[in-house]
């Protein structure tokens, strides 16, 4: 038996893994979660829809706050029949893709550090800092934005913002190539990831794995493509899918996703229509009685919000289907049979955020 965490730098948060070993081989892994449980779902029942937007930033996945806002608001707007003006939909799409880039950069940097490649971390955070600057200029916040509101976004983009965003997009593929140069051809990196931590396709679907983890196991499913929301139906992008199901495939999927995100942002800025950014919605909006389930593709995968309203100005019940929660469960399958030295590589490749797991 080996106890890893809950305080350990490579658990990416507060996670405890109870690893049963036979010599150096892993027999079983039992993740022990709940250290960051803040019962966001309960808190939401006492807050208005607008207040809940702020709560999704903080209580859920803190590395992709805008993706959380989007999931919650998509459910709210569908249940309430609230219109979002076209300009706001496109602005949201741009922001969501920047959020994906920022989140993937943190994953790549920290995972590379886990595997002993410190330089990549510094490079990644250099670019991420520029995205956070863009966020700060548009939303006022670097990590927690409260930028998306019921019926649109809080403010229009500042003057010159799209030019700065395009300048970043023009430059980013070169940086992406730098990461590839540092990692992809690196024989140590290849040995530690190729063929390691395999999750077969059937197991991925049955265990509810989602997002890049599922796509690296050959599941060709992306919510942006399959069930388009915001402006995703009107932009052209590819969904990378790899059949191997190992750490290497999960790495390649996310690297390719970053390239596609840049593509989406460039198209969205080119198509950004003028007009209103928010429809008129009461501050304490009351939704009609009913239930809805809205799904989005957060950087970590299939993020769903199941919302039940009882006609009040607060939700009756909110269930957050967190992608990290299901992906962490799939980890138990990936780890079986590998060596204890692979634990860090496999765990990092799943890209979990513990506040997303625990909520």
């Amino acid at each position, binding site marked *: 038996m080996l106890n890893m965490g809950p305080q350990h730098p490579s658990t990416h948060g507060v996670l405890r893994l109870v690893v049963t070993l036979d010599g150096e081989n892993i027999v079983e892994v039992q993740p022990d*979660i*709940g250290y960051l*449980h803040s*019962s966001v*779902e*309960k808190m939401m029942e006492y807050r208005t829809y607008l207040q809940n937007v702020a709560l999704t930033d903080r209580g859920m996945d803190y590395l992709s706050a805008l993706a959380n806002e989007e999931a919650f608001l998509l459910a709210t707007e*569908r*249940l*309430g*029949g*609230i*219109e979002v003006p076209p300009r706001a939909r496109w602005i949201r799409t741009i922001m969501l893709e920047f959020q994906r880039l920022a989140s993937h950069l943190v994953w790549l940097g920290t995972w590379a550090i886990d595997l002993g490649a410190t330089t990549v971390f510094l490079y990644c955070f250099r670019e991420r800092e520029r995205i956070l600057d863009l966020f700060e200029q548009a939303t006022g916040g670097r990590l927690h934005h409260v930028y998306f509101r019921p*019926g649109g976004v809080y403010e229009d983009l500042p003057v010159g913002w799209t030019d700065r965003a395009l300048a970043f997009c023009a430059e980013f593929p070169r940086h992406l190539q730098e990461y590839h140069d540092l990692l992809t051809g690196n024989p140590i990196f290849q040995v530690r990831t190729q063929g390691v931590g395999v999750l077969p396709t059937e*197991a991925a*679907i*049955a*265990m*509810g*794995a989602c997002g890049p983890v599922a796509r690296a196991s050959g*599941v060709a*499913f992306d919510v942006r493509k*399959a*069930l388009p929301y915001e402006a995703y139906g009107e932009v052209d992008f590819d969904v990378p899918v790899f059949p191997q199901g190992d750490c290497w495939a999960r790495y390649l999927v996310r690297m390719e996703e970053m390239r596609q995100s840049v593509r989406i942002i460039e198209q969205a800025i080119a198509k950004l229509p003028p007009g209103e950014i928010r*429809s*008129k*919605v*009461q501050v*304490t*909006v*009351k*939704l*009609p*009685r*009913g*239930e*809805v*389930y809205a*799904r989005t593709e957060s950087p970590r995968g*299939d993020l*769903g919000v*199941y919302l*039940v*309203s*009882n*006609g*009040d100005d607060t939700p*009756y*019940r909110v*269930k957050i*289907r967190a992608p990290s*929660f*299901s992906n962490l*469960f*799939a980890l138990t399958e990936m780890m079986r049979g590998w060596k204890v030295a692979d634990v860090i590589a496999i765990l990092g490749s799943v890209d979990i955020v513990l506040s997303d797991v*625990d909520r």
Partner: protein
Amino acid sequence: MSWALVDELQRRFPEVEPFPRPHPPEADAHPGEESGGTAARPAPARGHGAGQVFTHHVPGAWVPAGRLVEVARTLRDEAPFHLDYCSFVSAVDWPAEGVFEVTYHLFSMARRHELLLKVKVPREHPVVPSVTGVWRGADWHERETYDLFGIVFEGHPDLRRIMMTDDWVGHPLRKDYVYEDPRWLVELATQRQREIDGLGLGERA
């Protein structure tokens, strides 16, 4: 839309009860009621939407607890369902009716359609059969529902609390749950305050 799936499900299992289908918005609007959405305005009384129709935006049906596993197996394996992906398992507490609605959201990766299953269980004796044998991914979701609602999933391989500590009392997401600070925490805070101020929490000179 996947409402056709609900019809097919009902044809095979006559005991399931489909959700009422959502009407077009204009059909819902009765005079004197809020119509919600963009037209939402402050209602004169907080009536918890009394009299309003509950709209199900996701197609689905209520299933008797006794038939759940059988229905689940059919939904996973047989055409035209092939619902091989269980998004989540959770519950909604309706204390006024005295029931929990255990909720299962299912999705088909190949066919791209979805279905919501609900099982009504009494609040006094909340027991449902586990579907971990059908969808492995339901494992942790059922544990979470057990932890936060106190619903027992019979046949679950490892039904323990997952979020709260093992010695936690009560189930936080129930509507009648009231949070109280644990006694050890109150005593610790009182002691700390006494060390700083000479007076504990709530004490007067």
